[in-house]
């Protein structure tokens, strides 16, 4: 028989081993760089054509574009230094921490009632899951975090109006709506995220059966929340189960409180085989290591990466780039051709009719 948690979308589609997670990221990154490279080449060729052939109005327009090739004509597209996997991760990490800052910019009422820890955690997880399948070169995280927070609020049943988001983030409404679909697609429309918060509460209840000092339990539980929050920012959610993360957080909190939880654990898992419990401790140690050793990205680092990102953004996604413009023009031309064809048919028909009556 299966266990119930193996049926959750989180377990089926978002659970990896450490190695698999790294490999997935590497492969995705490689593909992304390849695609972006191709597009940037196309873009530079197109731009050259345009500046050669077209009127000065075009080049004027080109100046305005903030796409990198125009701003730095000396730089050969083949010489662009693309972001590495680590760069991307660091940048994502920086923006993940920015979600809290963004929440703090909302009015106090909304912040306290709507943006609970769970909503925040879901938003962070969405960002993480999104960039597992996408690259920052395609979608810049500063827009994605707004979209993810908006989606998270909705999926955790504490809806906040889009206007509030526009006010705080300055991202246009339509852009959020547009990205909402992109993000949802990358999440495979799986919005349910299982966080360790409930599990931690479960342990808080269960410990009352074993440990008599209720004040101690309470203090441990409340302290463990901050460790859980720290774990949300790491990759732990991709690798371990929420219950395991919660137990680790409690153990860390107990350590901080100078309280020994091992008796409780021993009592809990007496019926399980020694080996099983041993490997559980190993898992808990692993998680503890991940939480403790997580590296923060400083503002300066993020700024540097951001600067480099500006050069290797995918021109396909930039509405001002030559590729997008060409695409738009092609589309318009198509529409125009279609219209002309229709008109021609109509004219011929009219002519035929009139010839009959003459």
């Amino acid at each position, binding site marked *: *028989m299966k*266990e119930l948690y193996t049926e959750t979308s989180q377990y089926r589609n978002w659970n990896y081993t450490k190695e698999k997670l790294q490999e997935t990221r590497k492969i995705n990154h490689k593909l992304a760089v390849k695609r972006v490279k191709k597009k940037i080449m196309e873009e530079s060729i197109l731009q050259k054509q345009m500046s050669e052939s077209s009127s000065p109005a075009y080049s004027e327009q080109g100046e305005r574009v903030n796409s990198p090739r125009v701003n730095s004509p000396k730089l050969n597209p083949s010489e662009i230094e693309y972001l590495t996997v680590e760069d991307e991760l660091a940048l994502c990490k920086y923006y993940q921490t920015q979600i809290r800052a963004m929440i703090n910019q909302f009015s106090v009422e909304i912040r306290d009632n709507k943006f609970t820890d769970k909503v925040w955690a879901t938003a962070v997880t969405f960002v993480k899951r999104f960039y597992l399948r996408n690259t920052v070169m395609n979608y810049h995280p500063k827009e994605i975090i707004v979209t993810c927070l908006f989606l998270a609020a909705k999926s955790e049943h504490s809806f906040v109006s889009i206007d509030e988001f526009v006010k705080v983030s300055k991202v246009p409404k339509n852009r959020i709506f547009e990205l909402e679909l992109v993000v949802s697609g990358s999440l495979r429309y799986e919005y349910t995220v299982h966080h360790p918060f*409930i599990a931690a*509460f479960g342990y808080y209840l269960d410990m*009352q059966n074993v440990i008599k000092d209720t004040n101690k339990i309470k203090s441990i539980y409340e302290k463990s929340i901050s460790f859980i929050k720290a774990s949300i920012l790491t990759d732990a959610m991709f690798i371990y*189960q929420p219950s395991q993360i919660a137990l680790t957080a409690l153990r860390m909190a107990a350590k901080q409180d100078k309280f020994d939880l091992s008796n409780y654990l021993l009592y*809990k898992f007496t019926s399980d085989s020694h080996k099983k419990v041993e490997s559980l401790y190993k898992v808990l140690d692993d998680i503890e290591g991940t939480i403790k050793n997580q590296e923060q990205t400083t503002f300066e680092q993020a700024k540097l990466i951001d600067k480099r990102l500006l050069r290797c953004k995918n021109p396909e996604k930039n509405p001002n780039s030559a590729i997008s413009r060409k695409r738009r023009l092609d589309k318009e031309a198509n529409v125009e051709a279609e219209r002309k064809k229709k008109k021609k048919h109509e004219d011929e028909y009219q002519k035929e009719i009139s010839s009959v009556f003459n």
Partner: protein
Amino acid sequence: MSGIITTDYNGRGGLQDLDESCPICKNTRYLTPNMKLLVSECYHKMCESCIDRLFANGAGPCPICSLTLRKINFVVPTFEDLSVEKEVRIRKRLAQQFNKRQEDFPSLREYNDYLEMVEDIVWKINNNINKQETDELIEKYTKENKDNIIHNARRQIDEEKLAAYKQACEKREKRAQFENYKKSLEQERKAKEELEVELINELANSKTSALKIIAAKKANIHKNSDSFQDSHQENVQIKEWFGLDHLTQEDTQEFDPIASEYMDIDHYTIKEKYIDSYLPAPTQLLRAGGYNQKFIYERSLQSAFSGIFDNCESADEMEE
């Protein structure tokens, strides 16, 4: 459309079209109400008298498509629409060869591919596309999957037997129950009569007050009727030999709609009360909506211990 309810000689009743006519002799049902339209192998309708006339001397060509036909191969159509009739028959024929089940495939995907292949074949036969190629395909498939086809056919027969067996058992059980019930009713009635006779006798002979005697008797009656209901006869199980010994236990097991298909989450026992200042107290207002802290406690405890050994178990099993 005008129609009358008729019953043909096979006992099939149906709404039949009065304007229906035989395409060969143009005879309509209005003129000959007894006309029976049969269908040939090539799915052309003909009335019985035409068939008698055309194929009196054995095999002959179909007057519409000139396929060689025999009298014996004409059948009464089940469906009025012949295209439906044709497809149903093709499917019936193919089902004898293409009888694979989902268990025969490693994944749902492959099973679906197989089903699609069968649908393709049905479509092709139905529309006479690539006839030779399709026939070869079927032959090839039949040759390759000979054992599987025989095995599955046998299984199907077994399953049908089992279903029949179950139905027979159920029927007998029901009848036995009904008989028991009838018997108990009869007994009760008899006992009541006896008691009444007794009561009258006692009233006639005894010197105690009539009311007291009646009260005592009433209590007795209650006791007796209870004991009747208790003496429910054991279920008579009829086990008949149907050659079902090779069926697995799972096949014969009754389906339990309430049983969970997932493993229980253990390591915890839920208490009625916990010390906690986090959940809202169950006020009257909240309780009206069905709120009960116990559900939240249980949910939390379950999520605390579900998957706790997730990455550990596999290592454990390998050791064993």
